[in-house]
Structure formats: C-alpha cells, structure tokens
C-alpha cells in the first residue's frame, strides 16, 4: 500500500478555493516545498537512522516528485526490516509558518515487536526435525537484528545464532557475526560432517558490484556414514580446524534471480585458509557467470559457466570437506547428486578443479495452454550441460608455498605441470525436453 491520500488533498483544494480546471495544474506543475516530515509510531527506533532514509523527501520540487520520493523513502524504510507497516500521508502545511505551497509529509509506521518466533516441523528423508526460530528485530534501535535458529532432529541437531548490523544511512553496508553448529550427511561420499564455527562478514557495495569480506573459523569433524565406506573416506575421518579469509564479488544485472529474462550475473569467490590459524591451508577460487537474453515469442536464452580451483598450500593434501563436487539437477544434469569425478569404491571424493557449463532455452508451453493465467507459470526448458571435475597433479609443484613464489616465475615449467592431463575425465552431454 502506498502513495498519498488524495482525499485529504482534495478537501484542502476546495478550502483554498482553486478553480476545478486548475486542479490538473496543481498536481503536475506547481512547485512545492516540503516543510515538515512527521513520524508517528516510533518507539525504540532511533532518530538518526530514520533521518538518512527520508532525507531525499525534502529535496522534492513538485508534487509528482514528492509522491515519488515518498514512495522511495517508504521502500527504504521497509527494507530496514524494522517496521511492519509504513503508510505515507501528504498534506498541505498548516500553522503559522506555513508557506502557500508548503507540504507536510507524514509517515505512519508500526514497529515490529521486540521478539518474533516461529516453529516448524519438518519430515523427510528418514529424518524428522523440529525447527525453532527466534528473531529480535531492531534490537538497539538502529536496525540491528539477532536471529536464533535451533533444529532438533531424530538424527542430527544444529543451531545458529547471528547478529546483523547495518550502517545507519547505508543499509547495503553491513556486518554480521554468526555462530553455528551444522551437521550434514553426504551419502554420495559416505561421509558425515559436523561443523562448529564462528564467522564475521562485511558487506559493502562499490559502484555496481557487491563485495563481501569474511573471516571464518570452523571446527570440522568428519566421520564415515556407514561401515561400508571406502578406506579413502575413512582416512579423512577426524577433526580439523579451518580458519579462512574470503572475499566474494557479485555483479547482478538480471531482472530476477529466479527464471531471469535478461541481464547477466558474475560471481567471483576466493578463499585463503591457514594464515590466520588452523591446520588447513589452501587457496580456493571459483566463479559463476550467467547471461540471459530474451528472444522472440517470449523465449529466453541463457548461458552459464562455472569453474573453480583448489590449491593446497604446504605438504598436506586437500581435505574432502574443502573439495568441489559436481553433478545433479542444479549443476550438471544426467548425473546423480555430486557424483562426478574421482571416486573410490563407489564413494565420490570431490576434486580440486572443475568447470561446468550449460546452454538453456526457456519457452512457453507448446500451443500455449492456459495463456494469460495458469499456463504462464509453466515453461519448457531445453538444456545442454557439460562439466568436468578432477584433481590436479602438481608433481614438484606439490610443495607450493607462498614463500617460494619465485620458483614459479619460470612460467613454462609451471604450465607444463599444471596442464598435465587429469587421471579421470568424465564428460557427458545430455539434451532432453524438460517441462519446468
């Protein structure tokens, strides 16, 4: 709900005796000055963060501008996540200091309660669990948020606590601190993993890109899921501590993140572990690129490419918990979930380097049944997927460490070892009609 209350303006127009034919002129051409902005319904929210969000409203020059800027301010206030409702009232100014073209804008807000909770029960995959969520929005008055989630299941228990604080005036710049314990079961590798960790992250935009800087410390416990796990997986059981710094950059110009029609997405992610403690040391890079273009007849053509590489630093080989996995309906179709690449006795071990790509064509259903209504929710999806996952055999490059970087400026030798063929290559191309 938004926009000004035309009823009030209409009444005022009559009182100041303006001819009806000139009403059109008032609405579009008349210069106005926003004299006051009122807020009703503020409780614990502090004034300074509100000021930033509505500062633009004062700069409006004519009525349409005021309406537009008020609407934008309303959107900004809602995105803070501290109000349940925001209503905007635009009225002419009353009082002694009122100018003839002065306006008052009033924001009527309802703050969220101090504590909101949710309770869900989930059943699936031989496991039932109870999920309890607690949220404290706007904890100290400046849009800080604390959330707590607790999941108690028949097999595993996990929980997470997170604190989020945006910078007043710059909501896209924020930081959050998370504490969590997460357990996962990975039947494709016969592996069970329990992660207990703490992470802090900073998000900030630079021009059109969004950056995230994160430090994460995780205590990982790996175990076998079944007695029949392969020995390679059994060898990875035990505890390790990963302390890593990571940076992610996202440029997203798509019109929607689900079934986009146009625009492109580029995500680049890098992670360096081992230099802030812990016993796991590696450098990990990965990227995702997606391009969408609208074609004739309501179809959308989409191309995507992913790739990544994991370089262990030091003599220890990479851990199964850090490697990449590929396969399944979200990446390379035609393979079971994460079942591409190096394996041992049926357990997939993941790989240190991968690439995957896809070409997609989304069209409306053939003969367009249910057009204009239900049929518009369905699309036909043609796709072509390919991918590869392997381990990199470095040879002498195995003792790679940042201190010895000078050795690798002999590019020729480096490339020769780097491009050594992977021991197992699995490429599968499928193309079939899929009604999405």
């Amino acid at each position, binding site marked *: 709900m938004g926009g000004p209350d035309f009823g009030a303006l209409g009444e005022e127009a009559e009182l100041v005796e303006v001819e009806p034919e000139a009403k059109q002129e008032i609405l579009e051409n008349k210069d106005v000055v926003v004299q006051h902005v009122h807020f009703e319904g503020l409780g614990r929210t502090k004034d300074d963060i509100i000021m930033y969000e509505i500062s633009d409203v004062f700069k409006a020059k004519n009525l349409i501008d005021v309406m537009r800027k008020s609407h934008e301010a309303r959107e900004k206030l809602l995105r803070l996540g501290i109000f349940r409702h925001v209503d905007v009232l635009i009225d002419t100014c009353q009082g002694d200091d009122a100018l003839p073209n002065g306006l008052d804008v009033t924001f009527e807000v309802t703050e969220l309660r101090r504590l909101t909770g949710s309770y869900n029960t989930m059943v699936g995959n031989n496991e039932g669990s109870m999920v309890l969520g607690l949220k404290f929005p706007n904890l100290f008055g400046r849009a800080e948020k604390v959330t707590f989630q607790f999941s108690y299941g028949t097999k595993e228990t996990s929980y997470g606590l997170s604190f989020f604080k945006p910078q007043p005036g710059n909501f896209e710049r924020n930081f959050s601190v998370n504490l969590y314990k997460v357990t996962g079961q990975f039947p494709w590798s016969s592996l069970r993993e329990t992660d207990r960790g703490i992470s802090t992250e900073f998000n900030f935009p630079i021009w059109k890109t969004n950056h995230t800087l994160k430090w994460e410390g995780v205590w990982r416990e790996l175990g076998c899921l079944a007695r029949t796990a392969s020995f390679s997986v059994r060898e990875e059981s035990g505890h390790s501590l990963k302390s890593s710094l990571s940076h992610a950059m996202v440029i997203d110009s798509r019109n929607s993140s689900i079934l986009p029609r146009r625009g492109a997405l580029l995500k680049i992610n890098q992670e360096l572990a081992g230099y802030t403690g812990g*016993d796991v040391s590696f450098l990990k890079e990965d990227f995702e690129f997606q391009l969408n273009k609208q074609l004739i007849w309501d179809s959308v053509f989409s191309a995507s490419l992913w790739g990544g590489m994991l370089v262990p630093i030091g003599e220890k080989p990479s851990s199964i918990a850090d490697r990449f996995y590929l396969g399944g309906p979200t990446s390379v179709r035609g393979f079971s979930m994460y079942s591409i690449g190096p394996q041992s006795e049926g357990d997939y071990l993941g790989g240190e380097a991968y690439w995957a790509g896809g070409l997609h064509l989304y069209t409306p259903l053939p003969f367009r049944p249910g057009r204009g209504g239900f049929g518009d929710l369905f699309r036909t999806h043609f796709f072509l997927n390919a991918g590869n996952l392997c381990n990199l055999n470095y040879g002498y490059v195995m003792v790679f460490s940042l201190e010895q970087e000078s050795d690798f400026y002999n590019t020729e030798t480096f490339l020769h070892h780097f491009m050594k063929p992977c021991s197992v290559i699995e490429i599968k191309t499928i193309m079939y009609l899929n009604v999405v």
Partner: protein
Amino acid sequence: MSLVAEAFVTQLAEEQILLSDNASSLAVQAFLQMCNLPVRVVCRANAEYMSPSGKVPFIHVGNQVVSELGPIVQFVKAKGHSLSDGLDEVQKAEMKAYMELVNNMLLTAELYLQWCDDVTVEEITHPRYGSPYPWPLNRILSYQKQWEVRRKMKAIGWAGKTLEQVLEDVDQCCQALSQRLGTQPYFFNKQPTELDALVFGHLFTILTTQLTTDELSEKVKNYSNLTAFCRRIEQQYFEGHDKDSSTTVAARSAKRSLLR
C-alpha cells in the same frame, strides 16, 4: 589360507600416543607376529577416529577394517590362523578369564593414571593428546576425551579410588599373572597364545614408558618372572625382525631401557 596382502596396524603417531593405546597396539603387533603374519605399522594422527569402534589399534586387510584385539583374534581365526587351537575347553575358559582380568585391571589402571591423575594429565596426557592439532582444538579435544574417560570411570566405580588403591589393584593383578605364569615360558606352557600377547603388550609398555612417577613400573618389576617373560618375548618376536616394527619397539624402549 593366508591373509591377503599385508595387514597394517594403524596407531597414533609417536609423539601423540598414550600409554593405554600403546599397550593395546603392542599387544596386537605381538599377536600378529606370533601368528607369523606380516604386519606394517602405520601411524596416523586421526587413527582413533578412523577406527570403526573408536579405539586403536585397527587392522586394514584388503577392504576390511577390524579394530581391537578381541575381534582381530576372531578375524584371524576365521582366516585359518589361531594360537589357541591346542587348548582344551577348560584352558580356553581360563585364558578368557585372564584376558578379562588384564583388560579390567591393567587397562583401566592405565586409563585412570592417564586421565584421572591430575599431575599426569597436566604434564603428559594433555600435551601429547592434543599435539597434532592447532590451538584451540588441542585443548577442546583433550578435555572432551578426559570428560568421557572420567564418566566411564564413574560408571565402573573407579572414580572414587585414589592412586594408591589403583596401584594396589595393579599389584594384585600382577601377582595373579605371576602365579599363573610360574616358571613356564608362556602362560600355557609351550606355545604362546593371545593371552601372552596381551600381557606382553601391557607389561612391556608399563615398564618402558616414562611417566611422572615410577610407581607403576615398580609394581611390575617386583615380579621377576614377568620381566623375564617380557624380555623373552621381545627377543623372540621383535628383535631380528624387519626394520619397521623393531624400530618402533626400540624407539619406545629408548625412553626407558628394559634390558638393563
């Protein structure tokens, strides 16, 4: 039928292994040597977590993994090697009884000393147990293990015992073993059995491991036939064998020489 390929006994690395685990590992090694089966000893920091039962040592043969002496004896028997075939029913029952005695007394005393005696815990156990891991993981894992062992001690009623009482129990156990051994070379006269391997594992480790006090090894030294027994088995099965296992045994005995 011989075992396929080599079995390797996985145990914790030299600087990390504790008294009780060392004793169990040595018992398994002795047993396999007595059966004339080739053994390769591999040390891994995460051996405890690799083991299907959570205890070291375990053997990896082909694609099977078997942990702890009891199941290993069964497994080896299923493959056609057994040391106790020559015993009659009465003797087998007696052997089982003595093995239970060693497990309940000696092993538990070793665990008590390692995890419930504060001095030993601080000076030896915590640094050793957490050595492969970075801070703070080393402290977390040590405390977790200590809490677990103490809970087990409480369950079997040993939590209330003092160190003197535990040493008394060890003394009684050694007395029983010494009496049973008498002047024989092995517990069941001519041939070694799994009981000999188990007793050797524990006694040799107690005699050769340096702890904060010498009291434990002194209790064993009181019985000369037990020390002679350990020396005999060491000479017969561990010296003059290939480099791997003898180096491991020799490295351990470097801490305190048995053959003095």
